[in-house]
């Protein structure tokens, strides 16, 4: 964090933290600036390469793809600014959908009951991650890797035990399904473009995350524990509470994504979600988060998710050979991140 947003009190003499900086200067210091340039570059690239990329309907598809990543990338970005990882985030989405679906079905309860129970279970997993981390002092990479593997097994084991197959039973004919679908998986058509409700969720989550980061005491704590945990503790920042809170945030977003998965497809496959955790981390990093913590932004994660969505769908619109898909994806992401780092360097040099 370089500056505060509020105009400083003029009385405060020569304290450099209270110097008034111009709006442009402030903009150049933002972590997400580089990713904005990267996003523009990717957008222009695919606009030239792929005819169908620029269609309005295609834009709806790209936004949807971005939102499914972005919902998770926002809290993951906060967690990374706090200096931690969560490798269990990908399968936690699937777990959340499975719990919701199976609880409703087995108890023959209103679907909303399952949705609520799923929220509790998902938050419990998040709390488990946070507590294990702060109690054991092991790196979060190891803790969440363990959680990731355990959840993958639990997803499959429980689904098979309860449903007898590897996917859940349909709950589409149960009470509350329609209203839940409206909340988690509806869509509107605006001028021929189909917009999914996940885009709204995404925007709201990014807005909340940004507000927390820049406008609250908790936000300052996040930067503090990510930058230098021991120093933060020494000045009275509640490190444990902050980190557990961050994991709860990731769990909450996993719950939202999981419910979307359930209510848009109504049946959940128990083996899915593996590998997505890396996608969320990549989106956050493209958006300007440092792997080492202490630096980044939530808006950046949204732009990172948008770059990811544009790239993964743009390759399809460009009709490139799918065998090379992952190669192009990796190359584009590297280029976007490099451009991002370069822009940041230039911006910092002008300070």
């Amino acid at each position, binding site marked *: 964090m370089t500056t505060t947003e509020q105009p400083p009190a003029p009385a405060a003499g020569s304290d450099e933290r209270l110097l008034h900086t111009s709006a442009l200067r402030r903009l150049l210091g933002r972590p997400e600036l580089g990713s904005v340039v990267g996003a523009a570059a990717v957008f222009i690239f695919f606009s030239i390469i792929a005819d169908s990329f620029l269609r309005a309907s295609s834009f709806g598809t790209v936004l949807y793809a971005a939102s499914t990543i972005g919902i998770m990338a926002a809290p993951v970005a906060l967690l990374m600014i706090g200096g931690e990882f969560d490798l269990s985030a990908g399968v936690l989405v699937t777990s959340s959908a499975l719990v919701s679906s199976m609880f409703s079905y087995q108890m023959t309860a209103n679907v909303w009951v399952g949705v609520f129970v799923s929220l509790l279970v998902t938050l419990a997993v998040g709390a488990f991650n946070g507590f294990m981390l702060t109690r054991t002092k092991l790196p979060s990479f190891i803790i969440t890797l363990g959680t990731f593997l355990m959840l993958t097994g639990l997803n499959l084991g429980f689904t098979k035990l309860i449903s007898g197959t590897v996917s859940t039973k349909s709950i589409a004919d149960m009470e509350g399904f329609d209203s839940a679908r409206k909340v988690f998986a509806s869509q509107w058509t605006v001028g021929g473009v189909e917009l999914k409700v996940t885009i709204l969720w995404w925007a709201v989550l990014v807005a909340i995350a940004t507000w927390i980061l820049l406008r609250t005491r908790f936000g300052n704590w996040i930067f503090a524990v990510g930058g230098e945990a021991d120093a933060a503790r020494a000045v009275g920042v509640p490190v444990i509470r902050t980190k557990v809170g961050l994991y709860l945030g990731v769990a909450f977003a996993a719950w939202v994504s999981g419910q979307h998965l359930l209510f848009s497809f109504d*049946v959940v496959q128990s083996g*899915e979600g593996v590998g997505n955790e890396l996608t969320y981390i990549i989106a956050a990093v493209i958006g300007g988060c440092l792997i080492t913590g202490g630096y980044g932004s939530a808006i950046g994660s949204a732009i990172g998710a948008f770059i990811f969505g544009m790239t993964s769908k743009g390759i399809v*619109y460009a009709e490139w050979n*799918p065998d090379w898909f992952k190669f192009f994806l990796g190359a584009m992401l590297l280029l976007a991140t490099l451009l991002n780092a370069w822009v940041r360097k230039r911006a910092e040099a002008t300070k």
Partner: protein
Amino acid sequence: MARVRTGVRAMGAVLAAVLGASLVGCSSTGGKRAEERAARAAAEGRSAVNTPRWTFAMVTHSGDGDTFWDIVQRGAEQAAVKDNIKFLYSHNDEAQQQAQLVQAAIDQKVDGLIVSLAKPDAMKDVVAKATRAGIPVITVNSGSAESKAFGALTHIGQDESIAGEAVGDELNARGRKKALCILHEQGNVGHEQRCAGAKKAFDGQMENLYVEGTNMPDVQASIEAKLQADKSIDAVVTLGAPFADAAVKAKRTAGSKAEIDTFDLNAKVATALQDKTLGFAVDQQPYLQGYEAVDLLWLYRYNRNVLGGGRPVLTGPQIITSKDAAELAEYTKRGTR
């Protein structure tokens, strides 16, 4: 800067060495050149019709680098060449991603769509969207039960339950008592149906074993452990050709007497059938699934023909034993069986 330059120089030296070595030791048999000769001798790829150049997209639930889907794609591509079709292929093994890829195909305003319905519920809405947009849809490989309800013209594939039952019958005929069914793609409903069908028709005992299909050493180790733990298993059924080989290796290590049988074919399976390492294979002719899907879409666009009379068009099961394996070996080598 200097270090970069030496790096480039070293790379250049390595490249030169590789090129030099490849020019010296030539082989007069086999290899790339033999393959090229055979390819030249095969039919020249020219379209046989003068219909407009339509665009057909195929979106499957295949993972990366899947042999089976590679053959389906080959069949589709060859039909596309014949029918003067621009053919687009994309795939993802995650339901949500596959649905997004179908959406992308609709955005591209394709003239025909081929979809696999391994996860039917996830594909329901987006397939309905395609039919609403007036795009003819043909489903392949999995989803025979849902195909019609989703508004597809035809389903091409094998009925997994029937294929499973064929396996159960064959195991009975071979006098097997205790069999193991290896599922390598968790979450695939079709695979569950195969094992369930086999269990139904099989008079002995049948157990399911889940393995991580994207990790071959893990597949082998899992089967090995199971065979070591239970010596009474006398038949192992794998659901994909590459896994048969892993099962054979596992059987050797575990010192088991079990007969290995498999779904699907590949070059290795064909030779293993010939030397009786494998008992039998159940083929569903993937080439046919790709080829027919494109061809039937072409027929629909050209002549409004629909095949199957509202029922799935079955490409299997075809039980292949050591008798038939010899002539299929060369086709498996070129990657069409």
